[in-house]
């Protein structure tokens, strides 16, 4: 458990290959996520970016036939080491999915508190404070503070997605994984989430999968381009979008394929 060479480095994959059975969806990807930055993963559908994301909180291994080779280092520690409990790990690496997934039987409050309660009993006041804090950080507090006891399904799609962000933030993760978080939202909802990315990166390391190149350009510090399971190019976002070094990257960002 050596300390990371660079304290600014929070998450790192080392020659990560993700497989479904014998088929590799992500091939030999080494990628670094500096602390408190936003990294966007772009690429055409089926290029492995979501699978890659799901390796970072060990959700991939729950998929049918899912397994990996290589390493994923969180603060210098391999999260695939047998001594690491995947369930505990997922409390350190939060995730928000493509579609809003509020728990339908729970109230707004209980949804946000869900990840806290799973850690065992906590004083009521502490949970209250954590729920409020998470909702504030997800920019949802003002809209729901008077109806915390109502069903989460009463919220609009955009609000539900921010609720899912709040739910992921409540257990105070270090890393936040966003899997196309705006895919099912209207422009206003999308803008909300994008603004959130900017605010949240002061506290969290964020990795966002997106199909929307403008979104990647708007929210991220670094952009990684995936194609057919390979990492083609990684760079600072403004550089990758203005002067990509790889021909495939240029073809993709200029809309010639994908």
């Amino acid at each position, binding site marked *: 458990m050596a300390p990371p060479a660079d304290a600014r480095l929070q998450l790192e994959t080392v020659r990560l290959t993700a497989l479904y059975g014998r088929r590799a969806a992500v091939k030999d990807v080494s990628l670094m996520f500096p602390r408190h930055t936003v990294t966007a993963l772009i690429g055409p559908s089926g290029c492995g970016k979501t699978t890659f994301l799901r390796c970072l*909180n060990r*959700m991939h291994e*729950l998929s049918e036939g899912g397994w990996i080779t290589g390493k994923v280092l969180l603060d210098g520690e391999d999260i695939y080491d047998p001594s690491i409990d995947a*369930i*505990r*790990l*997922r*409390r350190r690496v*939060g*995730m928000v*999915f493509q*579609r809003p*997934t509020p*728990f*339908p*039987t729970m109230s707004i409050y209980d949804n946000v508190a*869900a*990840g806290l309660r*799973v*850690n065992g009993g906590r004083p009521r006041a502490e949970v209250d404070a954590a729920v409020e804090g998470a909702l504030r950080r997800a920019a949802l507090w003002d809209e729901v503070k008077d109806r915390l006891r109502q*069903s989460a*399904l009463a919220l609009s799609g955009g609000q539900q997605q921010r609720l*899912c962000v709040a*739910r*992921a933030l409540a*257990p105070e993760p270090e890393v936040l994984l966003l899997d196309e978080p705006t895919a099912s939202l209207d422009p206003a909802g999308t803008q909300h989430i994008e603004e959130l990315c900017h605010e949240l990166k002061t506290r969290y390391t964020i990795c966002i999968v997106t199909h929307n190149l403008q979104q990647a350009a708007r929210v991220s510090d670094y952009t990684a381009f995936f194609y057919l399971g390979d990492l083609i190019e990684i760079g600072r976002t403004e550089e990758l979008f203005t002067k990509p070094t790889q021909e495939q990257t240029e073809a993709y960002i200029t809309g010639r394929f994908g």
Partner: protein
Amino acid sequence: MSVRRWRRRFTSGVMTGLVAFLSFLAVLALVLILGDLVARGASSLDWSFFTKNPVPAGESGGGVANAIVGTGIIVGLAALIGLPIGIGTGLYLAEYGSGRLGWIVRFVADVLNGTPSIVVGIFAWTWLVKPMGHFSAFAGSAALAVLMVPMLARTTEEMVRLVPHSLREAALALGYPRWRTSLRVIARTALAGIVTGCLVGIARVAGETAPLLFTALGNLNFSTHVLEPMQTLSLQIYVYATGPFDEWHRLAWAAALVLMGLVLLLSLSARWAIRQRRGAAR
């Protein structure tokens, strides 16, 4: 073109008429049964029918209080035994049942689902009544529970499978252990559907007669002792309807009406549970 359109409309009209007629037939059967029950049974329904026990043949009057209470006890006990096993099996099938063992359990449940209820009665007689040496309400409950379990298991499995996969992933990604995901998120989301399945299952066995014939046996007196023979509405109907006396036939109709009313009440509760579920899903 217009000929084709005409033909299309004609075919559509005929088929719509046909399926409407067929559904009318289905409803007609139910309406006739209910109507007949009410016409022949309602006149015998009075307060004493619900509060008095049967009187000896030849005397008039008397009621089915013992059968109503017996039905409640036997079906209640059957639910007590059957619900946990059935729901548990359903959860197992939905959550962990993708392997060979799951396949076997599912197959056995389907076979059991199609087993004639009288066979289950014989089974209960062989394994419970004979070793214990006497008929008992408990043996009847056990037989009904055996009928209930496969029904509940498959319904529960279906309901749990209806819960979107994304919810499961959301819970796991939040650091929920798998068992906790199953119970707190998946089962809770499917709860209204499972409750509905339970009510339908209970309603189904409440009307069973065959498995009780040589287990609970029937009892002319009021009894709440589960290790003794006990009367149920279905057994009472059987005895009265096959008996030689007009008075008995009259009571059989009335008892049938009461049983039908009870089953209807359970079905309505199931409907209500479904509506709650829809309400929650909005």
